[in-house]
């Protein structure tokens, strides 16, 4: 018996196989990458905000200066004002738009879905430039503002609403798609009116989606830099303040302080959104029956009119920018020409900027997709090593909470430090790639995790029992089966790398100028039409990539995923 007791007490320490070591090493490698590319830079910018120009620790002196300078701290109020107005407008509009797309029999649904996604294809600078052409001093429909100026809060709100609409709509569509027809049938059977059903079934069902959309909208608007840069005028917001402090006044310390202040609401909105999303999960049971809308001519036509109006606005903004890029000399000579596309003659722009953008987007898509998918796979499918996986999961979420401007400025402090061996990267293409991959890491990671969670949890167990190393199963099974998601991730990274301005604006050098930066600089230099032209190049490229992605996905589904069809 004593022998048995001794055996029972002996705790078994599982042997870690060589495969597990490989997995852990790769996981640690990616975690280290994220540490270097986000945690350490954040620390650098935080500590910078407590130092003076000579690098001496001054405590809260910089913050005291910020709050004693009205021109600076009024930006907080300005930022919050325009952001909250945008949230209310966009969430309301997107709610109705999503309702029309999911819960009515409105015609032309797929057209409206496509039109609503147009703003995703452009840097936020472009709609702002378009607004200048529409409502600026020489604007086409300047009178519609009743004498008010586009430069200022009005312009910012209009531009931001355009820019964030597709992002908010996407969340709304997901929330609305998760509906259970049985609840509507029950409500009908109990004799509730349409209005009552709306308030007792529809609204409660999507309330988490609405809250989540609100927070996402809040974060996108308050951290956006492109729109206020172009149409902000004298109306200062936090995002433009960072840029002005750093680029205009070379006051890096104050830039760091404003960054920290901008980081706060972004982090708060991010945390709130995560909490809300966690609640959403339990809402829909597996047995739910999808809702099938029924014809209701009055509602359907009303919705068509509403979506038509929104769609018209979205298209007009793009069309205005497009036309402006081809008009010879706005507003005096409207004959079409390609002269604004001759970027090499412009101040602050060149065709090489466009090529750099393509290069950056390609590298970001390739490296980012490989890293994100591998990281997500290891977090989801590796065994043991709980602390390592939990840390990795946390690291993957950090980038989403950090505004691009803050990230870019943090890179300046971290990678430009003379005592950092990584400072050889500064002003090179690799640092732009690193910054962009990291900036968009979280959404890509979540897409990968969702795809991986749909795989049978026992694929890895089976291949271990068959003594097939995990990496073979990864390349032969996991990657091919997840190919649609992998393509989604690479397209997302490519398009965002094309359109991003905020993070890279502090990091480019003359040799690595980007198309989106060129828009900014040409607009600054007064070459507004060439800026619009460069914007159109980005739109065309992003649209081309999206079409290619759609074709590729269809092709792959038809060929390598023959198993999906019976």
């Amino acid at each position, binding site marked *: 018996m004593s022998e048995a007791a001794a055996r029972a007490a002996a*705790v078994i320490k599982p042997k870690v196989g060589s495969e597990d070591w490989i997995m852990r090493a790769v996981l640690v490698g990616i975690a280290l990458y994220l540490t270097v590319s986000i945690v350490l830079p954040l620390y650098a910018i935080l500590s910078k905000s407590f130092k003076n120009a000579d690098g001496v620790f001054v405590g809260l002196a910089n913050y005291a200066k910020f709050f004693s300078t009205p021109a600076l701290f009024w930006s907080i109020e300005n930022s919050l004002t325009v952001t909250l107005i945008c949230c209310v407008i966009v969430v309301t509009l997107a709610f109705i738009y999503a309702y029309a797309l999911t819960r009515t029999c409105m015609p032309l649904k797929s057209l409206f879905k496509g039109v609503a996604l147009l703003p995703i294809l452009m840097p936020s600078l472009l709609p702002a430039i378009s607004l200048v052409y529409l409502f600026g001093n020489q604007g086409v429909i300047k009178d519609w503002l009743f004498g008010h100026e586009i430069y200022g809060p009005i312009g910012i709100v209009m531009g931001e609403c355009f820019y964030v609409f597709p992002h908010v709509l996407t969340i709304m569509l997901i929330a609305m798609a998760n509906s259970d027809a049985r609840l509507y049938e029950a409500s009908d059977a109990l004799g509730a009116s349409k209005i009552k059903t709306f308030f007792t079934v529809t609204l409660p069902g999507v309330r988490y989606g609405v809250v989540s959309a609100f927070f996402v909208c809040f974060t996108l608007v308050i951290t956006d830099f492109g729109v206020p840069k172009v149409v902000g005028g004298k109306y200062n917001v936090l995002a433009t303040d960072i840029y002005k402090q750093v680029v205009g006044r070379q006051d890096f310390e104050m830039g760091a302080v404003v960054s920290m202040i901008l980081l706060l609401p972004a982090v708060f909105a991010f945390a709130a959104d995560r909490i809300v999303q966690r609640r959403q999960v339990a809402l829909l049971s597996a047995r739910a029956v999808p809702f099938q809308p029924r014809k209701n001519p009055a509602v359907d036509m009303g919705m068509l009119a509403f979506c038509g109006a929104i769609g018209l606005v979205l298209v007009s903004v793009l069309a205005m920018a497009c036309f402006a890029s081809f008009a010879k000399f706005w507003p005096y000579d409207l004959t079409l020409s390609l002269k604004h596309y001759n970027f090499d003659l412009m101040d602050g722009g060149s065709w090489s900027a466009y090529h750099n953008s393509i290069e950056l987007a390609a590298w970001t898509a390739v490296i980012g997709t490989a890293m994100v998918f591998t990281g997500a796979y290891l977090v989801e499918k590796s065994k043991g090593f709980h602390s390592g996986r939990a840390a990795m999961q946390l690291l993957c979420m950090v980038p989403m909470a950090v505004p691009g401007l803050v990230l870019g400025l943090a890179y300046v402090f971290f990678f430009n430090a003379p005592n950092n061996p990584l400072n050889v990267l500064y002003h090179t293409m690799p640092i732009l790639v690193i910054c962009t991959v990291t900036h968009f890491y979280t959404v890509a990671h979540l897409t990968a995790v969702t795809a991986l969670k749909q795989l049978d949890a026992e694929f890895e167990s089976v291949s*271990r029992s068959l003594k097939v190393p995990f990496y073979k199963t990864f390349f032969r099974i996991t990657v*091919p089966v997840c190919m649609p998601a992998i393509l989604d991730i690479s397209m997302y990274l490519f398009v965002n790398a094309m359109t991003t301005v905020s993070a890279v604006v502090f990091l480019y050098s003359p040799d690595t100028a980007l198309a989106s930066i060129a828009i900014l600089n040409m607009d600054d230099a007064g070459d507004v039409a060439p800026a619009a032209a460069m914007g159109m190049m980005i739109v065309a490229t992003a649209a081309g990539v999206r079409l290619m992605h759609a074709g590729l996905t269809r092709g792959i589904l038809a060929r390598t995923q023959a*198993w999906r*069809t019976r």
Partner: protein
Amino acid sequence: MVNDNDEGAYLRVRDLTKKFGEFTALRNVSLDVREGEFVCFLGPSGCGKTTLLRAIAGLDIQTSGTVEQAGRDISALPPQNRDFGIVFQSYALFPNLTVKRNVAYGLENRRMPRAEVAARVAELLDLVGLTAHGDKYPAQLSGGQQQRVALARALATSPGLLLLDEPLSALDAKVRVHLRHEIKELQDKIGVTTVMVTHDQEEALAMADRIVVMNHGVIEQIGTPEEIYAEPATPFVADFIGTTNFVDGEVRPGGRVAVAGVVIDFGSAVDGLAPGDKVTVCIRPEDVRVSDGGSGPGIAVTVTDVEFLGSFHRCHVEPVNGAGFGRGVDFMIDLSAGRARDLDIREGMSVTAALPPEFVRIYRPMGGV
């Protein structure tokens, strides 16, 4: 429960304990599986049977305790260093590979010449009767066919141990019964030592050489299907396998027990109990002997309900004297169709129910059944 000197044991589990944080999923589990044996782990969900299987496979290694396979201590080894094939409830077939490539998956990694792999795959597909479906994808197969592909894949590398984790529970009832025979036949043919986890007692009784009945992380009984059914070691086993009547009783002097107001002599079944002990008397519905009313030996009961269940009738009865069987549970008697016809059994009828001592098992009062 386990003979420590069982030299013939192929798989030897000793004092296995598995904790998930504060929760103990397995508590000091020990068992032996002989070479070529088909053993079922049977129990309700959450009893620890799958945890035990996964510990044997090395997929979730135990907190303490040892596992030996073919004389080798594999307690701490990762799955790839053990020798087993496994079939999961979901089958986990690779959806992007054809049936052939699925079966060949473990072989291709062993530097086996391509012709040999093809030959082995053909042999296995023949074994499971899927030769015609080799070039299809899993999604194009029925559930039963997918299950057989998973089986072929698990057997491809000729493992010493075959582990089956609820392999039939995702299938229709008819297919399940059919595959049950097929798996058993296949196992007999190739003689691979097999451990199967199931919550379906019928499946376990039909397939297993020996059954390990588990509950709350401990083994309740190990035995052949006949032993488990006829001589359940605990009230839990009696209740979980088949249907059993539980009746409150009290021991009286002379090896007799008072049940429902009647004192019955159960002979040796009462050994080791003292007069005055409260006990639970168990008997299966089909073991109760029924005769026409009158005053023969046994309990006079009134039939309150008769259920027609195809090949037999199930009668629910109450003692005539109003004493009740205790526990608030129905007392059931199963009668073959012929016997029911002979007795012309009907609701409201009074009959005498005898409890033959050889079929009665007496337990000390238990906690929760």
